[in-house]
């Protein structure tokens, strides 16, 4: 009975979104949540991948995966052990799959609501937000980022933000900071109530973090 329901559901899904097929084929759904009907599994949700990621980064990642969460996924039973060695390597995929995978991922979207400002930060704003990132709000306690000397610094319980500027979409970051519950029922990050200007500046700041700036 349950199987039948799943069959019908996935049938509906496939007809609604034919390109999701390759994600099913390659078994992404065995670890990742690909639609809102499923519950969170053992890896980050991908049912809003089209809101969150930059397509170029996705392509790179699926070809040559890198570690984003140094301590593992928040729901992993061994998350709090901090066993950073022996982490399973993400499956990688052949060149001919990449475009189709990325296209399918980018088609997975949910309604978002917080557009980020597009103008870059002034030097003064950049310094102010960096200070707040490290001190006022303590973001660096849980997230790796880059210091002025271009060195990786910070805690490991949150996803690394060292390459966030190449990886994430600005609008998604703004939305995450203002209403994380849209994307995750219960995370481990504290909620912040920033005024809209600060929120926009934090978003722009995170977008400046790129791995080519590592020295």
């Amino acid at each position, binding site marked *: 009975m349950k199987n039948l329901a799943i069959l019908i559901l996935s049938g509906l899904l496939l007809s609604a979104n034919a390109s999701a097929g390759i994600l099913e084929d390659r078994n992404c759904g065995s670890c990742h949540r690909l639609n809102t009907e499923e519950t969170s599994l053992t890896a980050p949700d991908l049912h809003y991948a089209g809101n969150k990621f930059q397509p170029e980064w996705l392509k790179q990642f699926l070809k040559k995966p890198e570690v984003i969460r140094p301590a593992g996924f928040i729901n992993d039973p061994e998350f709090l052990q*901090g066993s950073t060695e022996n982490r399973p390597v993400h499956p990688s995929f052949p060149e001919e799959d990449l475009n189709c995978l990325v296209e399918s991922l980018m088609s997975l979207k949910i309604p978002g609501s917080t557009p980020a400002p597009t103008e870059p930060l002034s030097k003064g704003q950049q*310094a102010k937000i960096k200070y707040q990132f490290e001190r006022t709000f303590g973001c660096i306690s849980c997230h790796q980022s880059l210091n002025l000397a271009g060195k990786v610094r910070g805690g490991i319980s949150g996803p690394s933000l060292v390459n966030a500027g190449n990886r994430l979409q600005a609008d998604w970051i703004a939305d995450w900071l203002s209403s994380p519950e849209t994307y995750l029922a219960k995370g481990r990050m504290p909620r912040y109530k920033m005024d809209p200007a600060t929120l926009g500046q934090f978003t722009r700041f995170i977008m400046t973090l790129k791995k080519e700036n590592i020295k």
Partner: protein
Amino acid sequence: MTMNQKILLAGIIFLLITGCGQNEQATPVVKPPTQQEVRETVPPTPQPKLAQVTAETRQTYQWYCAQCHGINGKGDGINAKFLTVPPRNHTKAEYLETRTDEQLFEAIKFGGLSTGRAPCMPAWGHTLDEDTIHSLVQYIRELCQCEAL
């Protein structure tokens, strides 16, 4: 400025500003955040209240606090070695005896800065309700097996 002066200046800034990331580099001098920015709201004086420690309290501690304070509250969570100020060891009575329940409540609700502690301790006031925070204070009292002197 000569190169030497620049290095000296950088050194001074380095000493003045230390963030939470280990081995911080100099950050340009900026105006420290105002109280408003730090606390976001003016704290009401919390009513001393004996909250219950339930299974939920322990789960909340494991889910949020253990990332830094460790599974047993000893200050050895996975982020600990990356912080400039180590997370407080919640099993150490000698220190926690010197703090009132209200001070612990404020540190949890408004963050380390609000009670003159390090900003590496984030504010949980927008994540956890006051009853939960009261029960976390009691749980910390259980961990240290101590009371405010």
